C-alpha cells in the first residue's frame, strides 16, 4: 500500500459524506447547503491535484496509490481495488475539475430543493471518481451505475423542456448500453478463466492465454456496442442531444464532460488490451460508424438552430474522432483518445455552462432569436468565443484539444490512408457551425425577438460568481495544452507497457 493511496478513497468518500450532510443541514439555510455542496466537490479536486503532483507509477501493472479492500464479494472475484495509472490519472483529475465547476455552478442555480439537487450531483461525482480509479472491473461498472442513476433522476425532476420524454429515452438507451457492456464484461470474466474481475489479473491471464477468435469477436462486439451506446456512437446517439437539451446544466456538464467518457475509457483501458484481436475484427465497423459521427453528425450540427442541441450534437461529433483513435490500436491513437477525452470534457462542460448563461440572458436557446449579445455582455462573449474556439480545436484556448486531434489524425493515417481526408474534413465542418453559432448569438444586430425578451430580462454581463466555474475549466484546459507533458509522460509509459498498442511508425505508404 502506498502512503497516499488513502487519498483516492477520501476523494470518493467525501462527496458521499457531503451529500448526506446536505440533507441534514438544509434547515440551516441555503448558504450552508451551498458551502457544504461546494466543499464536497472542492476537497476531492484538491486531493486529485495532489495525486497528480505525487504520481509515481512504481507498483505492479504501472499503477500508483494502490489499495485493496475485500467487500465480501471475493466469492465472485471482485474486490474494491483502487489505483491510478497513466491512462486513468488524467481522467481522474479531469473528472474532479469538471465536477468542481459543475458543483459551483449548481450551488448558485435557482433549483428547487437545492439540497436534493446537490445530493444527487455529489453522488454522481463520487461515482465518477470511482470509475476512473477502479482497477477492478466489477467496481468500475458499479461506480458507473452509481453515477448514472442520479442522472436519470435529475433530468426527470429538474430538467427543462420535454424532460419526461428525455428522461425516459436517456434511461432506456443508457441502461441498455450499460447492460450490453455488463454482459461483455461477464463474458470476459467467465471465458478468461481467471476467476477474477481484477484488471491486472485479467491482463496477465489473457496475455498468457488469449481468448479464441470467436470469443473475442462477440465479446468485443458486446463491449463495442454497449460502450458505444454510452458514448453516442452513430447511429445510437439520438439520446444525447435530446438528453443534454433537457438536462439541467450541471448534469449536462458532468455527463457530457465526464460520465460519457466511461465507455471510451472502458474501450481503451479494458476492451482493447484484453481483446486486441476483437478490435481488428470490428475495425471496419468502428471506422464506418465513427465516420457517421464525424461527417453525418457534423452536417447535422450545421443545421441546428437550438444552441444547446448544437453543443450536444457537436459533442457527439467529436466522439467519432475518439472511436477512430481506439480503432488505430496504437500509442498515438489510444494516447490521442485520452488527451482528447480530457480536453473535450473540460471544453464541453464549459460550453454547456456558458450556454445556460446565454439562456439566462436571452430567455431562449433559439439562435434565431438572439443576436448582438456581445454589445450587452462583452465578457460573456469573450468566454464563449474562447470555449467555442477550444471546441473546434483551435490551438490557443484549445491547445489541449489540438494535441488530441493531432495524435488521432496521425494514428488515423496509419490506420487507413484515405481516411485522413474524411476525418480532417471535420475541422472545416466544425469551424462552420462553431463560427455560425458565435455570429448568430453575439454578433450582428439584435433580433426583434431578443429586443422583446429584454423587456422582461435585464441583460447584464457575466458575473464573478458565474465566471468562477468557467475560469477553473479554462485555466486547467490551457495549462494542459501548454504543458502536455504533465499528462503525456505517464500516459506514454502506460501505453508502452501495453503490448497491444503499436509504438512505432510503420512507414507503410500505399499509393
Amino acid at each position, binding site marked *: 500500500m502506498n502512503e497516499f493511496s488513502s487519498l483516492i478513497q477520501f476523494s470518493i468518500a467525501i462527496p458521499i459524506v457531503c451529500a448526506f450532510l446536505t440533507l441534514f443541514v438544509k434547515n440551516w439555510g441555503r448558504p450552508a447547503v451551498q458551502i457544504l455542496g461546494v466543499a464536497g466537490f472542492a476537497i476531492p479536486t484538491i486531493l486529485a491535484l495532489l495525486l497528480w503532483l505525487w504520481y509515481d507509477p512504481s507498483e505492479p501493472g504501472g499503477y500508483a496509490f494502490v489499495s485493496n479492500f475485500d467487500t465480501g464479494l471475493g466469492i465472485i472475484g471482485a474486490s474494491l481495488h483502487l489505483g491510478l495509472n497513466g491512462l486513468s490519472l488524467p481522467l481522474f483529475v479531469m473528472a474532479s475539475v469538471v465536477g468542481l465547476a459543475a458543483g459551483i455552478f449548481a450551488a448558485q442555480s435557482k433549483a428547487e430543493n437545492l439540497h436534493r439537487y446537490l445530493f444527487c450531483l455529489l453522488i454522481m461525482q463520487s461515482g465518477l471518481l470511482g470509475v476512473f480509479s477502479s482497477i477492478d472491473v466489477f467496481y468500475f461498472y458499479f461506480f458507473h451505475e452509481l453515477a448514472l442513476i442520479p442522472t436519470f433522476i435529475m433530468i426527470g425532476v429538474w430538467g427543462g423542456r420535454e424532460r419526461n420524454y428525455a428522461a425516459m429515452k436517456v434511461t*432506456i438507451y443508457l441502461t*441498455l448500453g450499460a447492460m*450490453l457492456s455488463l454482459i461483455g464484461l461477464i463474458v470476459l470474466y467467465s471465458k478468461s478463466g481467471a476467476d477474477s474481475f481484477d484488471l491486472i489479473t485479467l491482463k496477465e491471464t489473457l496475455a498468457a492465454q488469449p481468448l479464441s477468435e470467436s470469443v473475442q*469477436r*462477440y465479446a468485443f*462486439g*458486446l463491449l463495442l*456496442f454497449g460502450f458505444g451506446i454510452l458514448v453516442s456512437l452513430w447511429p*445510437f446517439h*439520438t439520446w444525447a442531444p435530446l438528453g443534454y437539451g433537457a438536462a439541467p446544466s450541471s448534469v449536462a456538464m458532468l455527463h457530457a464532460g465526464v460520465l460519457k467518457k466511461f465507455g471510451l475509457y472502458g474501450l481503451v483501458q479494458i476492451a482493447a488490451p484484453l481483446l486486441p484481436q476483437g478490435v481488428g475484427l470490428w475495425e471496419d*465497423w468502428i471506422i464506418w460508424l465513427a465516420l457517421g459521427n464525424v461527417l*453525418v453528425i457534423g*452536417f*447535422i450540427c*450545421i*443545421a*441546428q438552430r437550438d444552441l444547446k442541441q448544437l453543443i450536444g450534437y457537436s459533442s457527439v461529433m467529436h466522439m467519432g474522432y475518439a472511436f477512430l483513435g481506439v480503432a488505430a490500436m*496504437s*500509442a*498515438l491513437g489510444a*494516447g*490521442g483518445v485520452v488527451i482528447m477525452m480530457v480536453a473535450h470534457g473540460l471544453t464541453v462542460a464549459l460550453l454547456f455552462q456558458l450556454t445556460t448563461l446565454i439562456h439566462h440572458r436571452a430567455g431562449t436557446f433559439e439562435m434565431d432569436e438572439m443576436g448582438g449579445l*456581445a454589445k450587452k455582455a*462583452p*465578457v460573456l462573449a469573450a468566454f464563449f468565443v474562447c470555449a467555442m474556439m477550444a471546441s473546434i480545436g*483551435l*490551438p*490557443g484556448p484549445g491547445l489541449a484539444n*489540438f*494535441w488530441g486531434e493531432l*495524435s488521432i*489524425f*496521425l494514428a488515423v*493515417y*496509419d490506420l487507413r490512408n484515405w481516411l485522413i481526408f474524411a476525418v*480532417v474534413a471535420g*475541422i*472545416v465542418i466544425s*469551424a*462552420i457551425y462553431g*463560427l*455560425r453559432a458565435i*455570429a448568430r448569438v*453575439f*454578433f*450582428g*444586430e439584435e433580433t426583434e425577438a431578443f429586443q422583446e425578451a429584454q423587456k422582461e430580462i435585464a441583460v447584464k454581463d457575466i458575473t464573478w460568481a458565474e465566471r468562477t466555474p468557467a475560469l477553473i475549466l479554462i485555466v486547467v484546459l490551457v495549462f494542459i495544452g501548454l504543458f*502536455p*507533458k504533465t499528462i*503525456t*509522460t505517464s*500516459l*506514454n509509459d502506460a*501505453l508502452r507497457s501495453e503490448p497491444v498498442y503499436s*509504438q*512505432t*511508425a510503420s*512507414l507503410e*505508404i500505399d*499509393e
Partner: protein
Amino acid sequence: MSPQTYAYALLLIPLASALLIACFFRRNGAMASGISVGAAFLLMLTAGHLIFRIENFAHDTHWIELGPLSLNFGFLIDDVAKLMLFVVAFVGFLIHVFSLGYMKDDPNKARFFGGLSIFMFSMLGIVVASSLVTLFIFWELVGFSSYMLIGYYFDKPSASDASKKAFIVNRVGDFGFLIGIVMTFWVYGTLDLLELERAVNEDPSKLSLPIATSIGLLLFCGTVGKSGQLPLHVWLPDAMEGPTPVSALIHAATMVAAGVYLLCRTGFLMTVDAVEIIAWVGIATALFAGLTAVAQRDIKKILAYSTVSQLGYMVAAFGLGTLVHLNHGASSHEAVVTGGVAAAMFHLTTHAFFKALLFLGSGSIIHACHHEQDIFKMGGLMKKMPVTFITFTIGLLALIGTPIVTAGFHSKDAILVLAYQQNSLAFYALVAGAFLTAFYMIRLWKIAFFGDPNSENAEHAHENGLVMTVPLALLSIGSLFGGFAWFYPEALKPVIAAGVQLNQGEGHGAAVGFGVIAWALGLVLAFVFYGAGAKEDRFQKILPPIHRVLSAKFYFDHVYNWYVANVQQRLAGFLQISEQLLLSGVIIKGLFAGVSGLVGIGLRSLHVGNLHAYVYWFIGGLALFWAIASGVF
C-alpha cells in the same frame, strides 16, 4: 542572456500586453493603446537585437511525446527568418503608431489594441517556429486574431460575415496543410524543420516518391488559404471590413505573406511537379486579381485585389525560382538561399513597405473623408491632403514598378528574370500582370486625387496629424530604397542580395525591357481613360460585358454562395430531417404502430405499453444489428 531568451521575449511581450489589456484595461482605451504600442516598440528593439547582435541559431525544448511522436517547442532563426522578423517587427510598430491616430475616437479601441497584440504574438510565432506543428499552431492563431479584428465592428452584419468567411476559408486551406503535416510525419518520421531538411539531404530518394509531390501540394494548401491564392482568395477582399490599420498590417504586409514564408521554410520538401503547379497557381492568381482590380470602385477593395495579385507574384517567384534550382541548379538542397526563396522574400519585403504605405494612405483618406470608400466619390484630394498625396504616390509608384527609383521595380524585375529563364508563357503572363497593375493603380490615383471633389465628404477632407503622417514618411523611404542591397543592414543582406543578384541573370535585358513597356503602357492608357479625374468609370461604358464580369470578380462568390445555400445547407437539412424521422421516431414508432395494428393488439397497448414496446423494439433492432454485424447471418 542566451539567444533563446530574446526569442521567448518576442512571444511573451505581446502576449503579456494582450493579457494585461484583456484583464485590466478593457474599458481604458488610452492605457490599452499605450501598452500595446509600448509592447510593439519593445518588440522592435528585441527583434533588432536578435537580428543584428545574435548569430543564427536554433533552440528546442521538449514539448510532448506520445508513441513515435516527439515534438519540440523551439526557435529556428536563420537568414530568411531574420528578414521576416524585421518586416513584421518594423512594419508592425509603424502601424501600431499610425493606429493611435486612426482609432483615436473609437470607444472600443482597447479591444482593437488587444487584438493587435495577439496578432503580433501569433505572427512572430510563425516567424520563429522551428517545427511544422509549432508553425501550424501559430498559423491557426493568426487566423484567429485576423478573425477577431476583421469582426471588430461586429454589430455590422457585413463585418460579422466577413470575419466568419475569412476563418472558414482559411480552415479549408488548413485542411490540406494539416493532412500534409500528417503525411510528412509518416514519410520522414519527424516534423522538425532542421531534421526534415537533414532527412531530405541524407536520403533524396524520398523526394522521388509519388507521395512527396502530394506532400508539397498539401502544404501549399495552407499558403493558398492564408495568402489568398486561387481559388481561396475570396476571403481577403471581404476582410477589408476590418479597421484600415488591420488591413495594412495583417491583410497586406505580414499575415497574408505568411503563406509565402511557409513555402520558403519548407522549400526543401518540394518536388519539380509540385513546384510547377505552385508556380502556375501564383501566375494565375496574379493575372486574375489584377483584372478584377481594374473594375472595383472601393479603394480598399482595389488595394486588396492588388495584394492578392502581388501575393501571386511572390508564389510564382518561389515556384519559378525553385524550378530553376531543381532543374539546373546544384543537386543538393544545401544552397544558402535558393533563387526562388530569395526572389519571393525580396518581393515580400518591398511589398510590405509599399502596400502598408498604400493601405495606411487609404486609411488616412478614408479617415479624412468620413469613411467614404468609393473612389468615384472622392476626387481633388491632392490639394486637401498634400502629405498623404505624396506618400501615397510613392507607394503607388513602387507598386507599379516605376523603373530604377522604386523598390517594387527591382523586386518585380527579379521575378520576371526567373520567369524568363523558365517559361516564356509565364514570363508574358507576369508582364501582362505588371501592365494591369500600372493601369488600375493610376486609375485609382487619377480618380481619387485629381479633378474636383465629387462629394460633400471629399470637399471637407483635411490632412491628419503627425502620428499618422510620420509612419507614412518612414514607409515611403523603404518603398523607394528597399530595392537596393545597400539599404539593408549586414544581417539582412544575405537574402536581399541574393534577390538583387537575380537581376543580373540571364534574360535581364528582356525582363527590364518588357517590364518598362508594360509599366509605360498601363500608365499611358490609364491617363487616357481617366485623364482629368472622373465621376464615372469610362471603361464600363466602352466594354460593358467585360466590365460586368470583372466587377463581379469572375463570379467566384456567386458560385460559393450557391454551393453553401444549395448543397451544404440542403445536405445538412436533409440529414437533420432524416435524423428526426428515421432514427428518433417514425421508424421505431411507425413499425410499432403498424405491427400492433396487424396483430390486433389495438389501441390499448399504444397507450399503455408505449414504454415497454419501445424497449422491446429497441432491443430487438439492436440484437438484429449485432447479429448481422457479427456474422450470424
